[in-house]
């Protein structure tokens, strides 16, 4: 029985606070577009009309970390850039999630050399590693759906002690 039918017969529904909060949370994941190199182009394609990330409630790409829930690190992270990425991550309010988009961010990828961080999990907690060089837009949408699934399993009280922002 669908939601509409239930409302028509009974006029009300019963649920839990946890289910409702996590549903609200996962249906409006606002991403921080950390487009550092070529994966950023695919990220833009996801925001465009053809792939349309708005279908998942994530069309609001905020260019300020203070309004973001999800950081999509799209591109090669050098040691010099790693401090900037971490600083932006620290400014995002809890709860927050991270997608390592592409092989460069996941493992260093083809850049096996001294200036490139061999995987951003050396300085960030990563939720989804997304393979591809660059990954196709539908692949990124799949990653977003996996993040939504993960958020759906959280409970409201999981984050009650989380600070609004971390400072380092």
């Amino acid at each position, binding site marked *: 029985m669908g939601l509409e039918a239930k409302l028509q017969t009974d006029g009300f529904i019963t649920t839990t606070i946890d289910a409702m909060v996590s549903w609200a949370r996962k249906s409006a994941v606002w991403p921080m577009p950390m487009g550092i190199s070529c994966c950023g182009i695919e990220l833009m394609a996801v925001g465009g009309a053809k792939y349309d990330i708005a279908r998942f409630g994530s069309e609001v790409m905020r260019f300020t970390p203070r309004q973001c829930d999800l950081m999509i690190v799209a591109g090669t992270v050098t040691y*010099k850039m*790693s*401090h900037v990425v*971490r600083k932006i991550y620290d400014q995002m309010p809890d709860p927050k999630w991270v997608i390592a988009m592409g092989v460069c961010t996941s493992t260093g990828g083809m850049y096996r050399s*001294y200036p490139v*961080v061999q995987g951003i999990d050396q*300085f*960030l*907690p990563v939720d989804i590693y997304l393979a591809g060089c660059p990954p196709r837009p539908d692949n990124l949408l799949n990653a977003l759906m996996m993040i939504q699934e993960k958020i759906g399993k959280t409970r409201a009280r999981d984050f009650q002690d989380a600070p609004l922002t971390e400072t380092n």
Partner: protein
Amino acid sequence: MLTKEFLSEKLSAGFPELKFEFSEFRDEITVKLSKSFIVTVCDYLKNTEGLQFNYLEDITAIDWARKKERFEVVYILFSIDLKQRLKVKVGVEEKDAKVDSVSVIWKAANWFERETYDMYGITFNDHPDLRRMYMPEEFQHHPLRKDYPLMGHPGDLSLPQK
């Protein structure tokens, strides 16, 4: 088109006491000279009729690792007026890795020399602002030297705390 004969004639007219080595590969001429005359020769190359190398395309270096003159600094010049190109090379020993700056002649040399300093550790005398170009200021090495390992030494570059 610039020929070796013409260039040799021009240079020996300007610097009769200096020795130049010329080589040619795929119609591009390279001239090698002693590093102590690089500024005066570059000035001459820029301001002489028939040469007019008014555009400095790049400065870089080569690390030959085992040669006595370990480094070679390469200047790639172009003449916008005459549409001709020239490479100038000077040899630099590891013990005395210093070359006079040509940033007084071409302003573009400023950043090229900073890059060469950053990557090879060759210092440029009288450079107005010789800081690192790419690597962080506290970095201790020069990564394009042949004795620097591909993956660097662990801990050379700092990461944020997890």
